[in-house]
């Protein structure tokens, strides 16, 4: 049995090993990489992506896919900024209401997404892709293409205030991760995600309301997208349609690189954390050692192919579609 254990363990811990290897590699290539300042920079850059990745993790565990995050983030960011400014534009006044309101907006966006998928019986891939475009269009309509500045110092302290050299938002993201972990491992809905991903027919025959689980999954994912939008706005101080730009590829890459299988039933939010860190360490490391931006995108693409290749047990999978 020891052999089996070691192989299984290897597969389980491979993402972490890759992360450590990457950190070592970049540290040797440029000693500046290994500094608290740089790690803080990586953590900060990773924060919005981590939230999006957590959201999509739940969907992928169910065996579905969600491609609406860029639209969802754009809508959430713009709604937040508009509401925040119209309520006074300062966190210590009534404007704080904009924070929970944004989470509700994200969840509602997910609700619509889920209902379109489940009620109209449109594959999640197509339903969410379309909803993403709807979101982009909606946010453009609201802003007219303008940027909205959010300059409240208290809100921006998420970025500017540092505890032990890391900005405040990193700690809040850590908290959100713990909440996600709790949902995943300690709640009915979390267990149901795995059941649906592992055997949908069976989950149905056991009296589970599979459609309800699906819709709830999209709602939870939407709420995490909203969190991601908040962190993204806090980071750059601007809300616009482009706030969600590039998050789709980054988040799905992270989830897959972290070891959550695309066909559902396995993986979890810790995998996604490791995945997000791998992606961001690579992005940051390549800047530190001086590679141009366009090389980075290419490297990330290769990385996804590599991760899926390594994580798949091809013996049991003769063909894929």
């Amino acid at each position, binding site marked *: 049995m020891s052999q*089996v254990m070691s192989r299984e363990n290897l597969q389980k811990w491979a993402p972490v090993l890759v992360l450590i290897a990457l950190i070592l590699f970049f540290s040797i290539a440029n000693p500046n990489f290994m500094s608290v300042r740089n790690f803080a920079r990586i953590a900060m850059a990773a924060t919005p992506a981590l939230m999006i990745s957590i959201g999509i993790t739940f969907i992928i565990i169910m065996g579905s896919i969600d491609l609406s995050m860029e639209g969802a983030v754009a809508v959430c960011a713009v709604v937040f900024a508009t509401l925040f400014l119209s309520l006074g534009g300062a966190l210590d006044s009534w404007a704080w209401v904009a924070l929970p309101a944004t989470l509700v907006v994200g969840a509602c966006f997910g609700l619509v997404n889920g209902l379109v998928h489940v009620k109209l019986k449109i594959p999640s891939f197509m339903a969410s892709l379309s909803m993403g475009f709807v979101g982009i269009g909606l946010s453009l309509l609201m802003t007219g293409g303008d940027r909205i500045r959010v300059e409240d110092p208290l809100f921006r302290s998420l970025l500017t205030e540092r505890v032990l050299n890391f900005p405040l938002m990193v700690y809040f993201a850590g908290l959100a991760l713990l909440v996600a972990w709790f949902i995943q491992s300690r709640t009915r809905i979390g267990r149901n995600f795995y059941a649906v991903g*592992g055997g949908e027919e069976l989950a149905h025959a056991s009296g589970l309301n599979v459609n309800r689980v699906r819709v709830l999954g999209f709602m939870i994912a939407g709420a995490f997208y909203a969190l991601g939008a908040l962190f993204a706005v806090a980071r750059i101080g601007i809300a616009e349609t482009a706030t969600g730009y590039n998050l789709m590829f980054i988040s799905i890459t992270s989830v897959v690189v972290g070891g959550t299988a695309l066909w559902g039933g396995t993986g979890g939010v810790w995998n996604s954390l490791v995945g997000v860190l791998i992606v961001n360490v690579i992005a940051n490391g390549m800047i530190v050692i001086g590679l141009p931006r366009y090389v980075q995108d290419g490297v990330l693409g290769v990385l996804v192919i590599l991760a899926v290749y390594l994580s798949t047990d091809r013996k049991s999978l003769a063909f894929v579609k």
Partner: protein
Amino acid sequence: MFELQKVDKIFPGVHALKAVDFEIKRGEIVGLVGENGAGKSTLMKVIYGAYQHDGGQVFVDGKTVRFHNPRQAMDMGVGMVFQEQSLIPNLTVMENIFLGFEKQFVNFGVIDWKKMAEAARHQLKKVKLDISPSTTTSQLSFAQRQLVELAKVLTLEERVQGDLVILLDEPTSVLAKDEIKLLFELVRDLRSRASFIFVSHRLDEVIDLSDRIYVLKDGEVVDVVNADEADVDSIQREMVGRNINKEYYREEQQKPYDDTKVLLELESVGNSGKYRDISLKLHAGEVLCLVGTEGSGREAILRTIYGLQRPESGSVSIKGQALKGFSAKCGVEKGVAYVPRERKIEGIVGGMTVFENMTLSQMGNYSRAGVLDVRHERALAREWIEKLSIKASSENADCGNLSGGNQQKVVLAKWRSGGSDIILLDHPTRGLDIGAKEDVYDMVRDMSAAGIGIILVADTLEEAIGLSHTIAVVKDGEIQKWFDCKPGCKPSLYDLIHYMI
């Protein structure tokens, strides 16, 4: 002509085949029997090239060979007729037959369909199947598909010089009695062209068809017997390694049921095209068996009771309350449990642990406001692992890695621990070996002693007669006849078959 000598196969942690000697002569039909996990499928996979042996040698006509994949085995004349139907349903019969070997019909990249149809017709004639080669496969019956599979393997005859070895893996499991007879006649006819290795759980069939029988236990060949000297009892003993209880179906434990307490009542329930005018009462502690041929409507009735299918007429009431909503969720809440025949699809979630599977249908009892009480869940799982002696390393073991019998126990534990008192068993012993079957029979008796009502669709008629208090014979969607099955005065096979066909 085909021989294995001292073949070993080792998986991490498991010695699956231990120095297996196996020989098959020209035109011979060799039976291969053993319990689940005895190594039958591993041995077959080595033979048809899906696995490579780790030790020993494989000979074809005295020459050492090593198959790296099934294609190489086919080129040497070894072909496999799969248990799970391996035909692609949306392709035509001829496309399936020549799948992967279309090259012979291709001119400049274009397939000559006429030529392929002609060749396919020739193959179908070998198995005496009179269908058009351009039929879409999904339109065929199970029996016809099985024959197409055989025809597909028989194409080896034209491609390979020398002798053929054809493996038949549980070919009879989806067939009706007369279809089995036809298949056997066909195999006997074909032995002039090929040797067969026949694998089945049904020992009487193996003895009937084979010349010699290899008995496998724990990865070793424990005996090779000539079929004319073999009998079911002694082979069973060798497979299991102990005597089979004479009281196989636990008849001595059959207690009369409580006829004052009606758990479930169906009143002239009908569903057009499936069944009509079905009335029955299930009492506490009763085992009611629905007997009939495949497609007689038994399964549809079960699905209606469970709430997966809404009936068009009549009424269903559970514990005196008429059912209004029809959904699996409703059924579960009313205490109805369904143990489906496809364990892998509807029985357990592979990849989830034992305790997670057990609480899957009743998470409400183990959570407050959506938050799970995992400690409570584990305690429950440990209790039931103990109670049903489930062989799992712990409650955290992956259910997908358990043997079929133990998976079945987990499914039953799931429902019983949730307090279900109407249990629908759809072929609960299908694919299980003898030891595991006996465990299931014990569980059935335990459940009925505990006042649980059971509706059973049994794997064999003997099983139905042995286990049940009451038998309803279903034919063409109608109940033809009721039988009372008190221990000591049970109806015979003949009594039942008379009303079935």
